[in-house]
């Protein structure tokens, strides 16, 4: 099939406006995830008494669904992205509230809901939606003064973070808070306010340290490894040493037989052991390229909302990957965070694909005409009319 510029169909339009380099990088990540799941998950599946390729099959299925979701989302325009995000965010918030009040508790946390036999984490799908809505609110806050956009942005962010804290999911809270702070900084708010987020963040972290036993334990063990059982972290860090630069070879690793989360939180260590540090650096480079490409795309972007959303979504993906990798190499205390596109897990993969789809949608080239803002709606005494 040949597409021409004369063709104005949705497909042709998409093909000539989408950032194909970014798309290639994202598809590459999904492909890497499929390959690595074949190496890492059979050992875990066997240990759990499932069929060896249980997790791999699920990973392939979710990768396929993820590609469809990503491509579908990438055809939307910014207004549609905002609407979809608003619906998703409200749904996610409602589900998070329901979970906090009545959800099932698994491994000491209330994070999952069950639909037709499948577990799923509403917080995962809520994250990209939150970033889009926050970007919109920050953009509005910079542009007009007649709506309380900034307080709303603070409120929505705090509400979402609060719901994550009560799960408790401190890792995700940190991620969301970091992205929030970055958006605040980028939205052009006065620098002194932006800098205020630092003491607030430190305060929240200190609060978590005091309030949650497991957070305190993890941080203590991180600071002083001899103070407790640091087995997973040590074992993960060791696997990079075992793998060396070139790895022991696919399937030759041993960490996957030891760590219960080898197919999710510690998959980076499996990659390190079996494919080597060079492969790990290459994988990091792909994430880095996604972030770089996203930032480059918005360098000239005049629309505040689009610029904030693109950077926010890219940060969401890449920061999560970095935190996961940092835990794996022993630079950060353990927290339950997946490696986007690579780790097993349906909600995580779908959320990553949705994030990527929105990223693609917002980085598409648009004619200048479409960027002209619509007239704002202002309340008047005789109803709502265009000014």
């Amino acid at each position, binding site marked *: 099939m040949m597409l021409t510029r004369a063709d104005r169909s949705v497909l042709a339009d998409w093909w000539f406006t989408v950032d194909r380099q970014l798309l290639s990088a994202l598809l590459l990540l999904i492909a890497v995830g499929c390959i690595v799941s074949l190496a890492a998950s059979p050992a875990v599946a066997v240990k759990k008494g499932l069929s060896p390729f249980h997790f791999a099959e699920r990973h392939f299925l979710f990768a396929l669904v993820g590609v469809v979701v990503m491509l579908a989302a990438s055809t939307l325009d910014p207004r549609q992205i905002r609407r979809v995000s608003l619906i998703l965010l409200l749904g996610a918030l409602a589900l998070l509230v329901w979970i906090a009040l009545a959800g099932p508790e698994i491994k000491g946390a209330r994070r999952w809901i069950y639909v037709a036999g499948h577990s799923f984490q509403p917080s995962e799908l809520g994250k990209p939606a939150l970033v889009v809505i926050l970007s919109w609110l920050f953009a509005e806050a910079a542009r007009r003064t007649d709506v309380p956009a900034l307080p709303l942005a603070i409120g929505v962010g705090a509400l979402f973070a609060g719901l994550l804290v009560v799960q408790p999911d401190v890792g995700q809270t940190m991620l969301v808070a970091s992205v929030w702070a970055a958006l605040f900084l980028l939205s052009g708010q006065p620098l002194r306010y932006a800098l205020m987020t630092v003491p607030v963040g430190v305060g929240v972290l200190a609060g978590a340290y005091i309030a949650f036993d497991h957070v305190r334990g993890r941080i203590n063990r991180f600071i002083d490894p001899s103070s407790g059982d640091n087995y997973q972290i040590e074992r993960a860090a060791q696997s990079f040493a075992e793998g060396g*630069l070139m790895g022991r070879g696919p399937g030759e690793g041993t960490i996957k037989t030891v760590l219960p989360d080898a197919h999710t939180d510690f998959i980076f260590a499996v990659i390190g052991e079996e494919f080597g540090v060079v492969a790990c650096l290459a994988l990091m480079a792909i994430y880095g390229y996604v972030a770089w490409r996203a930032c480059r795309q918005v360098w000239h972007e005049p629309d505040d909302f689009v610029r904030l959303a693109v950077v926010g979504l890219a940060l969401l993906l890449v920061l999560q990957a970095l935190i996961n990798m940092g835990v794996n190499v022993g630079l950060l205390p353990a927290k339950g965070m997946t490696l986007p596109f690579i780790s097993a897990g349906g909600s995580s993969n779908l959320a990553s694909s949705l994030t990527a789809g929105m990223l693609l949608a917002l980085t598409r080239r648009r004619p200048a005409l479409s960027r002209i803002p619509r007239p704002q709606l202002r309340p008047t005494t005789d109803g709502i009319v265009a000014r």
Partner: protein
Amino acid sequence: MTGAALAPPAASVRLRLLAVVLALGLAMAAVAGQLLRLGVSGGASGRVASLETVVRTFARPDIVDRRGRILATDVAANSLYADPAVVLDRDEVAEKLSRVLPGLEATELRALLADRNRRFVWIRRGLSPREAQRVHDLGLPGLSFRREPKRVYPVGALVGHIVGQVNPDNRGIAGLERHIDETAGLEAVSGASPPLSGPIRLALDLGAQHAVADELRLAMQRYSATGASAVVMDARTGEIVAAASLPQIDPNVAGAHLDPARPDRLQSGVYELGSILKALTVAMSLEDGLATLDKTYDVTKPLTFGRHQIRDLHPPGRPLTVRDIFLQSSNVGAAMLGLEAGTSRQLVFFARMGLLEPIRTELGPVAPPLLPERWDGIETATISYGHGLALAPLQFAAAAAILVNGGRRVAPTYLRRDGEPGQGEVVLKPETSAAIRELMRLNVTMAHGTGRRAEVAGYRVGGKTGTAEMPGVGGYREKSVISSFVGAFPMDEPRYLVLVSLFEPQSGEGTSGGITAGLNAAPVTGAIVTRIAPVLGILPRGIPVAP
């Protein structure tokens, strides 16, 4: 307003974007640096913890008897392994370990630890807590424990042949353990975790099993026998409530099931069982309407086949009725019944009783029946009194159950069977079964019945004796016999079938020099019934109350 929205971002905004990109880049550089540090430093990082292994073991369900008493279970035990790369001084390790773990060869251990490229070698699996503590107290680096499930058999040899054995990975390799592997499936575990599935419940009654094994042990001593076996089977369902073959094996000892001197005679060997097969011959004649209990046969003269003669030990000197042929155990009479029926009828009847096809139980295939190369004339005659056809005792017991239970086939099983008894195919007329019961009971109650020593007051035992010469080089050996007693109780409505066999018994106390089954197998059966009938809940009847 509109113009401002279309303008590229202000320089300050770009600066902030650059700051974010820079921060991200720094974080990435940190992770990449740590990655390179770990990867390039390689195994020499000095933080090498002992390497876990891919080896895994299997959690097994418990095996319990019919009342839930444990026959086999998993306990968590420490298995000792070494990481040769971390062991500092292998001579010291080898020497100290072989001192605290008896049976460990220091030289072998040194060779194991010599290969520094290996990161995992088993030293010994399934240590007792005390042994593990002693090893732990040595404080040698490079040694570690793994918690593993270890199979233990609390009652040991009492059920050795039945439960079988497992290998060091806790996989079943013999007996019921193997059956569990082949049917129920196991869970692979790394570490010692309890199995998810419930216990395997056997038909076996531990109390009855103990009584049977104990009586067999006493009998082996009393008669200086080389072996003994007995099975107690629910005649209606085929459930085996006790089964022992002496000498027994201790499942706690690795490799015990391979000892050729300790076979499970009930199911892994075939034997010519002798006169106890006459019960089948008589049943065949009655079943096919060829004779009644009162029909007489001239058994005074030996039967001659070419140079072979079939004769009785004590020729009766008068024609005998079918009843007397059974009670006096006349070889000539049984042969005449067999010849009257003919080879084809005998084959059909034996097949109907399930004696010609190989069968299997949960312990594996039963040794298949050894049929004569030619089955005609003389074979028909000899098989009628139990020679020329070799059978596993368990297979014969299943056929004998048909004779007494009203004519229904049963499949012998070691597992507890749920549901109503008596679902088997009917292969014998109830009247025939009733006649055999009557003969068996008469054989025990009559003053001169061969089975009279099996009588137990109140439990109405009935049965048939059989003394078979064992084949030796160039013919049968007169002084080496298998003496058996097949019986059932209570005979008015048989619940349990008992088959006792003594291998090569010698004359002992109370046998006045004889080695025939009536003198040894019958009293052993009586002793067994005396002990197991109360355990199995059979109510005694007609016992005079002690004054």
